[in-house]
Structures are given as structure tokens and as C-alpha cells.
């Protein structure tokens, strides 16, 4: 047994993360970037988890692999992350700040130190095995990597299927491995890891659809699971993105999605809602339609739970633009038509008529569940699971377990989508940073970079690497032809193709090429610079080149994706694009970048639960925090909330955090004030408050909150018996309801309809929470809820079921025929159409509670203008990236949390607030911040101080200097180039987008 230290001790500066999906990866990067050593333990042979299996993601349609792959490579290259893949924790001892983990490493039979990842072993292996990654739809070899972009990329021998291990002969892999990396003698090893905190991110299992034999999975070949369909959609999947039925490889026309397979089904599946299936089915239907326009998708659903930010809009688009048919019905049987392989679905219409409809293919939307060993896993780490096997957490501390120093994140805490998982990844990193604040920086090493080679004056020697992206690019663009067309151009010293330019082994290849061919400029022709440029820049920097001597030519978005099926046109265009970039890069010069000091303090705008949570986390991390609240007291909207859905006491929690906030030595609370004026830039902001206080800070968290809608609908102002859900909650808390009262509730008041066409996310649970409280206090009460879709996603579904069991009545309505309210002598009468009775009904009630939605806080508009933060159509702040940067703003140094971002529940607000604190902590932990090299350079000799730039710059970078002439603050500059566009004297030139460089591109094109 070997010991992996890390200086052990009660204030360790390292964190162990168990589980290598996207949640664990986010936590690893945040921690490693902020001065902590990370021990990353992953059960599979590669990082990636579930996200790497997905094709595209909702609601933006971004490619999942393209988003996650750069992060995987970043982790692999990070000097402060040790990856232990193919490993499992077998023992945990110790206490916060001083844990010892015993970790069992499975033999790979390939020596990672010798392996170059060339893949010849896999090519030569004669044994074909059903691929787990491709969900049984394709074969892999007995020596393999989980996926093409695997991290670590050392292959693994599957002992159970290896001919040598099973029959004693073959060893083809060993014969062909020039690196002598194959080691059949490899054995299981055990190591010990000393660490300060443990983060559990083991991820999820997918429900086995074969448990529902009436749906035919495993029996009828054209019935597939939703994860199989992801692989079918994927360009690198078994059918290379062509949509075919597995049974006979025929293109299906009518495809049916069956929702809630194994979810919301306590009898044969899981009682909870899996949270993501409504949206991923919508996405799959839309993408399928994009791949093949003749496809007619139908989604059979129980309730459309499009509860997230912009989700309803996405579903509307799927209906209106893509013709996706949504049909509310539960499928009772799937029969295969003998001979055709088509599938007949049986279901009952709303009026009870039983229908049989035939489809060419069926996709089962399977849910998420904890791993089969979830209870033992919890026991191993000494934490308490909930009744379903998920980690038990409180709504006020969603990433903490009941064992100090051990945290959870992602789907192990409950079903959730990618952004929620990423948020919790950052949240858990923030929590660990707060726990180990004293150990920060004690166990990390600084990355040693080679000295930059001086290339000025040298003739350009350009390397051009054209990426296949598996078949993503190569199925449309003739990659070899592109290489051929550019390899003999002037200054091109080397040109070749790469299967995946972004994979870890390709980075090594690029470094070798730079050295072997003495390259001084590199072009990669692949995808978008937005996601991949930083990766390649780091690679050439590792090879000793200035990182700005790199250029990315996008031949995926601009060629293979938009000219699908037109190989000739796409190839011609790709050649043209690469030629233009060659012309451009010839004129590149090394760029020297600036770095600035960081003010190690934060400002948090908003003193609600989000703001206070962020402030406390940052303060615990050791940073001074200024908390700004425009009202005279802290607490925000939560001041009117008494209980959570699980009956936790919100007021007690609120009192507690207000007290902690007000008494924390690192927090200065400014109440009754707002931001008057702001200046500075990331790392060095200066803010003036309305009471005259001046605050210097390095980062800003915007947690400005929201408000509740004040309704005009349903005669709200005409009777004292018509109240809001919040008012009802107050009466329940005060025990101010007559016993046996009749309570009616109407959902979606002021939500999901023009002009406020989004779901407020909290109202279904608020109604159910209050309904349960009323029924429990007085079982004779009659509670009726009029709803459109009950959106009790995730484990909240338990309470929906509890309400039904307590006798709460649920009556569905459609927006075209909303309930009609009449005020009567005794209270209120509500008429609605009942779909089960198939007739109008009238419910008499003492009180009618309206579930009113949420709105962004009025101050958000002004804050948005002041900090130049974009908002969506509904007025909520827009994050930098919907999936992977859910709490960042595009403007550096500013983060978002809570209702200012979108409607959300208290536990989600806490998660996001912790995440914002985690992200801000990464920034504040830096001694100095490097400024980007892609900025505008200002030539004062040419400048006539006409102020054109001064007027248009969105970042206030140009300023009027003391001499009355324009100067330029390069630290504020974001490199957008607007100044360069408007400057009549050409005094502004953006690095790597200089006029001479652009003109060279144009010349090359025409």
C-alpha cells in the first residue's frame, strides 16, 4: 500500500472528490483553481459520467461532448488535480480537516506512464465485445477506452473478455504496442489518501426499462431507451447520427416517446419524478426532426414539467416550429406488429376511449435513480441516506450531509439536470473552501511553464491541424482534401489531420509537432474558438510558444453542420477558411499580457437568503464581504415564508442566518442603501453607496431577488375570502382557519400565459405544502386545487402523492377554459370543467387561494444597466452559459444567485448562492489576475480624441485622461473591437484582429 500525501493535518489544503461526472468536475476545477489540491476518484476508467453519453443538451441544443471535453482535458492537465480512475473508496476514517480514504485501484493492464494513447492496441485487438457506452447498439474491443475523448486516455483491458486472460493466447496488443505499455501482470492496488474534506458526486443510475415488460423493451427491437436514442442521435454513436431503428436499420417516420417510464410509479418503478425527462424528450424530438425532417415525433406524457428557466418557451417552440405532437396519455401496452416491426401503442383518451396507434419506433423516457449500492455507499461514508437511497440533505443546506466535512453534489442529492448539477458542483466547492480556508494554498504546486521561445524576426513556420471530430466534421468535409490543399502553401511547415484535436493525446501530439518541426505558429481547423481556443493556447504555451500565436479555424459550425450532405461545397469552404487563417496568422506577433492586483473583498447585492448565504460562505472562506440591502432589514422574500415543502421551519432558519450575517467579523451589512455609482473592473471594483460609503472589492455577487405577483385575476380584490397562497400560509402559521374549512386553490395565476409566459416553478409546491398543512391540521377540510400541470419535480413528487392520499382533490383546467369564480354569501364558488366526470362542476369554498407567480425585482433593470449585464425577455439576468456557467456573468468578476437569475425554490437558491460564493472565492484566491491578450491597443500618436470610442465602449475602457486626451484602460477592455470599428484615425487595433491581419484574410479569400 502506498500513501498519497498531501501534508496531513487538521487544516489540510486538499479535497477528495468521489465521482467524476460533470458535478464532480466542476467542483474539482473550482477547488484546484483556488489553491486546493484535488484527489479525484472515479469508478469508470474515464471521467465524464452521464453527460458524455448525451448528444445535445436542452434548451440550447449545444453539443454535450463539445462542452464537457475541454473541461475533461483541463482537469487532466491541471497540476493540482490527481485523477484516480478505475478506483473505488473502500474505507473512510478521520474528521473534518483530517480524513483518510482507502482507495482500491483496479488493474488497467496498461501502464499509464508508458502509454501514449496511440490506440494501435485497440485496432489490433481481435475480440469484439458489446459496448456498454453505446448502450448495446455497437461493439467495442476487449482493450478499449470508454470513449474517444477519454480522460485519462490510457486504455483498459477488459479481463473477462480478453482472449489472453480467458484462453491463454493472443497478446496482439502487446505485440503491436511500441511503447511496451501492456502489462498482463498488473494487479489491484490499494492507496491511502489524506485529505481535508470529501465531496460525494457518484451520479446516477438509469432506470431499467425492462422492468416494464408491457412496453416491450428488450423484447421488440425497435423499442429503445432514451439513453440509447441519445447514442443514435450522436454523430459519434452507433449509426453516426443517422436515425435508424436498431431492429432493421430502417429510417423511422413516426416516433413515439413514452414519458415517466419508471418514474412517478411507486408500484413498479420509483415514486419520484426524474426532473429531466420532459425536457430531454422534447430535445430528442426536436433534434430528431432536425436530423430528418420527415420524422413525426409524438410525446406521450402525464404532465409537462417544463419548470426551468426558458423551458416552457422551448416546449412551445418544439410544438410550433418543429411540429412535435404532445399527447396527454399513459401508454398501457406496446405491441409489435408481426412482420413490419412497427409498434402499436394502446392508450385511453381523456374521455376514456381506448385507442391503438401505430409507430415505427418507440423511445422510453427512463428516469434517474441512485446507484444499486447507494445504501452501502452511504454507510461507507457514514452519512444518512433518505428513504429512496439519495443522500439526505436539508433544504437550508442542500450540499451538506449529516457528517461534518463530507458533502454531496449533483444527482446523488436528488434528480436534477446539468446546470443544477454544475451549480451544486460550485456550491460544494465553495462549502469546502469555507471549511478549509486556513489550508488554502498549502498543498498546491505552481505549474512550471517552459520559457517562451523568442519568435520575433523568425520567418513564419505554421503548423495546420485539421480535425475530423470523429465523423462530426469528417462525414461532410473531406478532411484529407483540406490538408492536401494547404500543406504546400507558403510558410506552412507542417499539415496533418487529427481524429479528435481536443483529446488529451492530441495535445501531446501538437506539442511534439511544435518541437519536431520547429513550428512558431499553429492553426487548428475544428470547431468554435468559444469553447476550444483556450485549450489549444495552453497546449502551445506548454510547448514553449506564446499562446497568442494560435488561431482556430471553425470548419464545423461553418462547414460540416450548415452544409450537411454537401461534401464538395463544404470541403471547398473549409479549404477557403483555413487558407484565410493561414494568411492571418502569418502576421501574428507574440502578445505580452498584463496582470493586476486583486482586492480580496467581495460585495454582495441583496440581503435575502441568497445574498446572506453567499456572504456567509465568502466570509467563512476568509474574505471581507460588504452586503448591500435596499430595505431596512435583511431577509428578503423569505420573511413571508413559514415552512418548506418538507415542513422545515423557514423563520427559524432565517433568524439564524440573519444573526450569523450581522455578527460575522468579516461581513459589513449596509441596509437601506443601494449602489449609487460603480467603477473599476474585475479584481478591483470601486462602489459608492447611496449613503456615501465607498467600498473597494474584487468581485460582485448580484442576488437582488424577486417579488411576488400582485394578482388582478379571479376577483382577487373583490372579496376578503380570495387571498394569495402567501396569505393563506400566514393564516396556517397563525392557526387562523376555521376547522373543516373549504379551501380552493387556483394555480398559474399570472404565470405561463401572455404577457408573463413562464413557469414560476415554486407555486405547485407552495399549494401542495399549504394543502397538506390544512388537511393535517383539520382532516375534515375540503381542499381542491385547480391546476394546469402539477410540477412537483424530483423528490417533491412524494408530497404530491401525500396530498392525494390525504384527500386533496386535483382538478385540471386548460388556459382556454379557466375556472370561473363567483363570490357567494358563504365565500366563493368555482366552476370548472372536470375531465374525469366529463362535465362542469362547481366547488364551494370558504377561501380561494391564488398561486401567484414570481417576478424579477424592480431594481434588476437598473443594476443590469449599471453593470452592463444582459437580461432575458422576462427581465431575469442571463448567465454566461446556460449549461456550464450557470452563476457566472459574461462580464468577469460578477456572479448571480437566487431569484435574480430565475424563479427557484429555497434549497435551489441556497445551492446557487453557495455556488456564486465558490466561483467568487476562486477569483479572490488569486494573488494577481492575468488580463486577456485579446484587447484593443491604443495609439495615442494617431488618436485625435474625437471621443467616438468613449461614447460607444460598453465597458468604459477609453477615458478622458488628465491631459484632456483619450487614454485606454486595457484592464477594463474586453476586446470586443467596437472602438476599432468606429475610430476614424485607426488608433485602436485589437490584438490578433489588426487591420493588416483582417485584410490578409480578405485577400486570401478573394
Amino acid at each position, binding site marked *: 500500500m502506498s500513501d498519497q500525501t498531501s501534508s496531513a493535518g487538521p487544516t489540510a489544503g486538499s479535497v477528495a472528490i468521489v465521482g467524476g461526472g460533470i458535478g464532480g468536475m466542476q467542483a474539482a476545477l473550482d477547488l484546484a483553481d483556488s489553491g486546493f489540491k484535488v484527489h479525484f476518484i472515479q469508478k469508470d476508467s474515464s471521467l465524464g459520467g452521464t453527460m458524455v453519453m448525451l448528444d445535445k443538451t436542452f434548451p440550447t441544443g449545444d453539443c454535450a461532448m463539445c462542452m464537457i471535453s475541454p473541461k475533461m482535458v483541463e482537469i487532466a492537465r491541471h497540476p493540482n488535480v490527481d485523477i484516480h480512475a478505475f478506483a473505488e473508496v473502500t474505507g473512510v476514517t478521520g474528521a473534518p480537516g483530517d480524513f483518510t480514504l482507502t482507495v482500491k485501484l483496479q488493474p488497467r493492464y496498461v501502464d499509464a506512464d508508458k502509454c501514449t494513447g496511440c490506440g494501435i492496441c485497440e485496432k489490433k485487438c481481435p475480440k469484439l465485445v458489446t459496448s456498454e457506452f453505446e448502450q448495446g447498439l455497437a461493439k467495442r474491443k476487449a482493450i478499449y477506452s470508454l470513449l474517444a475523448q477519454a480522460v485519462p486516455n490510457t486504455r483498459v483491458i477488459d479481463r473477462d473478455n480478453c482472449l489472453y486472460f480467458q484462453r491463454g493466447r493472443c497478446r496482439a496488443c502487446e505485440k503491436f504496442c511500441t511503447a511496451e505499455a501492456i502489462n498482463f501482470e498488473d494487479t489491484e492496488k490499494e492507496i491511502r489518501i489524506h485529505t481535508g474534506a470529501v465531496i460525494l458526486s457518484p451520479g446516477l443510475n438509469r432506470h431499467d426499462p425492462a422492468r*416494464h*415488460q408491457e412496453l416491450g423493451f428488450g*423484447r421488440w427491437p425497435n423499442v429503445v431507451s432514451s439513453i440509447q436514442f441519445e447514442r443514435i442521435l450522436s454523430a459519434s454513436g452507433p449509426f453516426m447520427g443517422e436515425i435508424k431503428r436498431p431492429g432493421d436499420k430502417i429510417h423511422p417516420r413516426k416516433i413515439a416517446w413514452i414519458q415517466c417510464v419508471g418514474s412517478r410509479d411507486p408500484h413498479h418503478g420509483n415514486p419520484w419524478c426524474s426532473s429531466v425527462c420532459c425536457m430531454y424528450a422534447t430535445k430528442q424530438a426536436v433534434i430528431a426532426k432536425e436530423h430528418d425532417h420527415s420524422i413525426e415525433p409524438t410525446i406521450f406524457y402525464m404532465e409537462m414539467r417544463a419548470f426551468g428557466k426558458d423551458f416552457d418557451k422551448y416546449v412551445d417552440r418544439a410544438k410550433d416550429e418543429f411540429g412535435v405532437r404532445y399527447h396527454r396519455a399513459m401508454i398501457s401496452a406496446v*405491441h*409489435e406488429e*408481426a*412482420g413490419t416491426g412497427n409498434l402499436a401503442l394502446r392508450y385511453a383518451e381523456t374521455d376514456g376511449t381506448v385507442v391503438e396507434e401505430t409507430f415505427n419506433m418507440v423511445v422510453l423516457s427512463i428516469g434517474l435513480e441512485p446507484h444499486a449500492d447507494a445504501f452501502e455507499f452511504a454507510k461507507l461514508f457514514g452519512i444518512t441516506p433518505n428513504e429512496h437511497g439519495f443522500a439526505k440533505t436539508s433544504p437550508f443546506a442542500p450540499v451538506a450531509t449529516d457528517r461534518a466535512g463530507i458533502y454531496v453534489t449533483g444527482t446523488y442529492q436528488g434528480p436534477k439536470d446539468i446546470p443544477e448539477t454544475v451549480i451544486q458542483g460550485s456550491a460544494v466547492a465553495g462549502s469546502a473552501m469555507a471549511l478549509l480556508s486556513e489550508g488554502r494554498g498549502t498543498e498546491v504546486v505552481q505549474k512550471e511553464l517552459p520559457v517562451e521561445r523568442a519568435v520575433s524576426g523568425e520567418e513564419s513556420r505554421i503548423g495546420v491541424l485539421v480535425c475530423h471530430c470523429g465523423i462530426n466534421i469528417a462525414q461532410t468535409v473531406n478532411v484529407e482534401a483540406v490538408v492536401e490543399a494547404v500543406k504546400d502553401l507558403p510558410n506552412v511547415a507542417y499539415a496533418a489531420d487529427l481524429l479528435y484535436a481536443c483529446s488529451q493525446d492530441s495535445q501531446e501530439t501538437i506539442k511534439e509537432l511544435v518541437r519536431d518541426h520547429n513550428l512558431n505558429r499553429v492553426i487548428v481547423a475544428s470547431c468554435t474558438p468559444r469553447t476550444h481556443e483556450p485549450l489549444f493556447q495552453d497546449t502551445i504555451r506548454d510547448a514553449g510558444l506564446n499562446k497568442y500565436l494560435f488561431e482556430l479555424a471553425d470548419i464545423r459550425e461553418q462547414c460540416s453542420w450548415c452544409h450537411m450532405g454537401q461534401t464538395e461545397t463544404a470541403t471547398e469552404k473549409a479549404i477557403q477558411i483555413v487558407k484565410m487563417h493561414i494568411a492571418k496568422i502569418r502576421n501574428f506577433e507574440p502578445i505580452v499580457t498584463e496582470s493586476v492586483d486583486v482586492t480580496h473583498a467581495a460585495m454582495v447585492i441583496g440581503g435575502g437568503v441568497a445574498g446572506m448565504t453567499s456572504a456567509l460562505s465568502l466570509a467563512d472562506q476568509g474574505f471581507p464581504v460588504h452586503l448591500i440591502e435596499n430595505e431596512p432589514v435583511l431577509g428578503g422574500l423569505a420573511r413571508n415564508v413559514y415552512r418548506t415543502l418538507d415542513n422545515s421551519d423557514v423563520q427559524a432558519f432565517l433568524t439564524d442566518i440573519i444573526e450569523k450575517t450581522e455578527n460575522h467579523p468579516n461581513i459589513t451589512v449596509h441596509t437601506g442603501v443601494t449602489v449609487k455609482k460603480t467603477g473599476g473592473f474585475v479584481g478591483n471594483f470601486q462602489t459608492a453607496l447611496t449613503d456615501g460609503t465607498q467600498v473597494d472589492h474584487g468581485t460582485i455577487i448580484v442576488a437582488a431577488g424577486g417579488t411576488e405577483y400582485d394578482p388582478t385575476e379571479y376577483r382577487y380584490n373583490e372579496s376578503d375570502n380570495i387571498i394569495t397562497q402567501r396569505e393563506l400560509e400566514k393564516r396556517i402559521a397563525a392557526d387562523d382557519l376555521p376547522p373543516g374549512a373549504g379551501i380552493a386553490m387556483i394555480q398559474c395565476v399570472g404565470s405561463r400565459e401572455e404577457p408573463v409566459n413562464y413557469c414560476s416553478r415554486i407555486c405547485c409546491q407552495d399549494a401542495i405544502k399549504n394543502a397538506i398543512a390544512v388537511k393535517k391540521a383539520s382532516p375534515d377540510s375540503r381542499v381542491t386545487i385547480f391546476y394546469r400541470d402539477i410540477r412537483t419535480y424530483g423528490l417533491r413528487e412524494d408530497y404530491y402523492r401525500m396530498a392525494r392520499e390525504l384527500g386533496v382533490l386535483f382538478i385540471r383546467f386548460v388556459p382556454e377554459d379557466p375556472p370561473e369564480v363567483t363570490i357567494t354569501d358563504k365565500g366563493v364558488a368555482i366552476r370548472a370543467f372536470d375531465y374525469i366526470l366529463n362535465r362542469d362542476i362547481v366547488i364551494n369554498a370558504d377561501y380561494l387561494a391564488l398561486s401567484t407567480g414570481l417576478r424579477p425585482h424592480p431594481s434588476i433593470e437598473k443594476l443590469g444597466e449599471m453593470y452592463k449585464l444582459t437580461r432575458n425577455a422576462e427581465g431575469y439576468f442571463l448567465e454566461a452559459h446556460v449549461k456550464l456557467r450557470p452563476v457566472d456573468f459574461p462580464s468577469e468578476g460578477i456572479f448571480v444567485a437566487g431569484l435574480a437569475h430565475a424563479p427557484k425554490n429555497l434549497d435551489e437558491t441556497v445551492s446557487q448562492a453557495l455556488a456564486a460564493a465558490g466561483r467568487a472565492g476562486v477569483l479572490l484566491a488569486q494573488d494577481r489576475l492575468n488580463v486577456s491578450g485579446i484587447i484593443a491597443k491604443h495609439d495615442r500618436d494617431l488618436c485625435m480624441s474625437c471621443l467616438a470610442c468613449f461614447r460607444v465602449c460598453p465597458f468604459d475602457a477609453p477615458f478622458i485622461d488628465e491631459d484632456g486626451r483619450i487614454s485606454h484602460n486595457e484592464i477594463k477592455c474586453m476586446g470586443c473591437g467596437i472602438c476599432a470599428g468606429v475610430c476614424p484615425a485607426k488608433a485602436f487595433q485589437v490584438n490578433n484582429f489588426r487591420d493588416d491581419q483582417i485584410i490578409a484574410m480578405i485577400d486570401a479569400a478573394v
Partner: protein
Amino acid sequence: MQLAYYPGCSLKQSSALYDVQCQLVFNKLNIRLVELEDWNCCGATSAGKTDDFLAIAMPARNVGIAAQSGLDTLLIPCSACYSRTLVAQHYLAAHPEQKEEINEGLGKKIDGPLKVSSILEVLQTTLESGVLTDALVSKPVRLKPVCYYGCMLTRFPFDVPVSDDIENPIGMDTLIEAMGIHAIDWNYKTNCCGASAAVNDPDTAFHLMSKIMTDAIARGANCIITTCPMCQLNLDAYQEAFCKQYNIEERLPVFFITEVLGMAMGLDFHDLQIDRHFIDGTDLFKEMEPYE
């Protein structure tokens, strides 16, 4: 080995041949069937439709007799009898007050553990122990069967332990495959044949049976194998009628699992009474190959 045996009304009347076959086949498997003394009707659908108490009390009396027989397993070949009896047993286990009430009126009290088994469950144990395979003599090679379980064998009005998949049972398919005969997968394993509706609502029952028949033919089956006397009788006796009504050309013999097993065990053709079906299937047993 001895098993308590409840034949039920069908096996004494319309499907008497099933009783004969059961006795012969289990005898070959060294299992002696001990018929319950003084058993009564399980109540079938009639009791359940008229009186909830009777629906439980009628099969409960038989459970009492079996419990006092000294045998630990009660074999019930008929699916309806099996379902009613199993449901009654589990209902009373969950409702002790009603059990007490019924026991008061019973001579032989419901008491002690008793396993109520379907014919497939018992055959499955003989397959697992190897007894069944050892008893096989010659294989009827012409058979291309679909296994038809009917609607009652795996599906109950409330939760009882079911030894097979409820929606896609495979017990009979496993047995047939163990005999070296390929059991064709199809859609209608557990669909209803119309049951007693064949008498009072033939339109509905014929429609259901025509769908079962159509899928079996489309899958290339040349016979249907079942364990339920009601299903067997309906599909056999009404086949001419519903096929004519739905323009189905082909006819498929409908066998009990026991006659297929019996033939493979080398039992006599006439003893098994295979020639007593409405749709003649005797040709399918003309070609037999010895097992290795």
C-alpha cells in the same frame, strides 16, 4: 412426492381431458396428485360479481381442506381457480378478522402455511431438479407453438406474489424451450380470450379471440399451447365461428401444456385424449425424434 390437487369444475366437466392429462404427466414425474376431499366450486366470476364475502369464502373453504390435508402444496391447474384461491388466501392473511369469521363456519380451518401453486410453478420445479428433462423421450419436431397464458395467471385484483413477469410471463416458454422446441414470442400472451363472454357477448369475445389468432398466425405459429381450460375451450370450440366471422383462413390446434409434455414423455396418444379437440392437431405429433 405428493401434492394436494384441486381440479375445479372445468377439469371435471368441459375440460375433463386436462384432468386425465395432469394425472398421467405428474405420474411420470413421480408426483402423486391427491385430490381434495369434498371440494367446492372456487366461485369463479359469478361469486365475485354477486357477493364480495362469497368470493373469498368459497375458495377459503378449499384452502381450509388443503391446510388440513397434511400436504404443503396445493396444485390448481385451472387459471381462474388458481387466481380465486390465491387471492382469497392472501386476502385473509391481510384481514385476520374476516379469516376468523370464515374459520368459525368451517369444519376444516384455514391454518398453517400452504403454498398455492399453478401448474407452471410445479412443472418449473421439476425442470430445475432435472426430473422433467429425464422423463423426456421423443420430441414432437413439427410443433411451432406460441405460449398463451391468458389474463388470469399472472394478474390479480391486488398484490400477491407472482412467480413470473406479470406482463410478459416466460414460464411456459422456458418449459417448451427446455423440450428443444422453439416457443415463438408474440403479443398476446396475457390478453383476454373473452372468457365467459363467449356465451353472453360473443361479438366481444370473438373480436378478442380473432386478434389472438391473427397474431399467432402472423408470427408463423402452427399451434397454441395454454394452461387455462377456459382459454383452451374458447379458442378451440369457437375457432371455426370467429375465424369465419373475421375471414381467417388458417386454423390452429390449441393444446394443453400437459398433452405436449405427455407426448414428449412417450405417453399414449389415446390415453392423453389428444383427439378430443375441436380443431384437430394430431398431425403435429406424427413426427417424433428421440431425445439424445
